[in-house]
């Protein structure tokens, strides 16, 4: 398999996001449809059931740098959330405490990250963590 | 003078004989463009998936007089984009009848056509057209009966 270059990889992800081919529990799209560099993206995660996140919709901001997908994107919650891998002051997902970013592989994509974050919200130790008021932002 | 022959290395060369219709009805080897229009390797070399040229990686001649490595054209016709058309002239690609070079491949290409037809029928079935599938299956059964005389399988055919 050859290496799909960054921009064509992002175009594939964009198309998948636009056509809604991914799972229903998360979505993502370009923050600015004029951004020819396709750097900044918006993401959403639907809180997993049977947890304190149930029925909540979390917004995130994803930044795919020039080294993506060789390097993971930087990802930040906009909606306030209490989760061990998220910086409580800035909303930044910290790579050292979130395995998907720490052990990043080129085959991973934005959907992988959003789905794994959703799994993180549903782990036995995280699902009952007290959460900030719904709708508040970092 | 006495000569001792210690060893003999035999060397031979071969090329595909590609018949081509001329306007005056005579046959002549194809001379204008002797590379496969798909992989751009010589007719006498192999397609990109094969190591050894010859019968394992043979050449086929289309009804439209365009020639390709059998593996190249098969892979193309197996894509949905191809719509069964020749890459060069966009006419429906059919193997030319009555050529020794094509004979061993006729079966394989007939199967491919049927497969395509069945998958098209399958798409129709999504729109509740069960008749289309029934028709395709009937055609397939018919073809199987027709073909029982001359089943030549090419095990070496590489399909991705």
């Amino acid at each position, binding site marked *: *398999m050859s290496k799909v270059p960054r*921009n064509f990889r992002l175009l594939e992800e964009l198309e998948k996001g636009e056509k809604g081919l991914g799972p229903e529990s998360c979505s993502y799209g370009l923050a600015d449809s004029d951004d020819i560099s396709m750097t900044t993206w918006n993401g959403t995660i639907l809180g997993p059931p049977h947890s304190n996140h149930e029925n909540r919709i979390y917004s995130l901001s994803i930044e795919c740098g020039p080294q993506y997908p060789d390097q993971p994107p930087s990802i930040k919650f906009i909606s306030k959330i209490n989760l061990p891998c998220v910086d409580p002051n800035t909303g930044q997902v910290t790579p050292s405490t979130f395995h998907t970013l720490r052990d990043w592989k080129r085959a991973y994509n934005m959907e992988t990250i959003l789905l794994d974050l959703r799994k993180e919200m549903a782990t036995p130790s995280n699902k009952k963590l007290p959460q900030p008021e719904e709708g508040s932002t970092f | 003078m006495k000569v001792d022959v210690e060893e003999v290395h035999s060397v031979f060369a071969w090329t595909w004989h590609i018949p081509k219709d001329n306007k005056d009805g005579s046959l002549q080897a194809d001379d204008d463009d002797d590379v496969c229009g798909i992989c751009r390797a010589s007719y006498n070399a192999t397609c990109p998936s094969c190591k050894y040229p010859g019968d394992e990686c043979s050449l086929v001649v289309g009804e439209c007089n365009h020639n390709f490595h059998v593996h190249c054209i098969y892979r193309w016709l197996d894509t949905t984009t191809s719509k069964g058309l020749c890459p060069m002239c966009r006419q429906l690609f059919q193997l030319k009848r009555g050529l020794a070079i094509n004979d061993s491949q006729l079966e394989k290409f007939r199967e491919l056509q049927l497969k395509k037809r069945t998958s098209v029928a399958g798409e129709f079935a999504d729109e509740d057209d069960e008749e289309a599938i029934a028709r395709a299956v009937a055609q397939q059964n018919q073809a199987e009966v027709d073909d029982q005389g001359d089943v030549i399988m090419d095990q070496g055919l590489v399909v991705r």
Partner: protein
Amino acid sequence: MASLPKRIIKETERLASDPVPGIGAEPHEDNLRYFAVTIEGPKESPYEDGIFELELYLPDDYPMEAPKVRFLTRIYHPNIDRLGRICLDVLKNNWSPALQIRTVLLSIQALLASPNPNDPLANDVAEDWIKNEELAISKAREWTTLYAEKK
């Protein structure tokens, strides 16, 4: 990485030794399937004063699958969207493995010479084009000066 198919090597060599006038295509050193492309705007088109940058990638299935091509320079054209994606039949349904990198790039150059607002990708641009062609052409000229490299 798997070795590069002969056909790609041949095409690359020929693009360098026998380049198409007004078109440049060079593979990136670290990915020989990924090309940096430049296309000069065709004469007597609103793009004539500019040189446009594009990127081209040959997917694993090439030549059974069309190359992927995108404009990196912003361009005002009814068949090219804001992200530089191109609406061109030979890149999609009308691809044929008999086509090559050079023929694809020539088709794109031809698309610059004759925009087709009836088969649009950039909907708003196509609308402008149909409503007031003269105005659209002057805007295309303006964008060429703004974003494309000067010839």
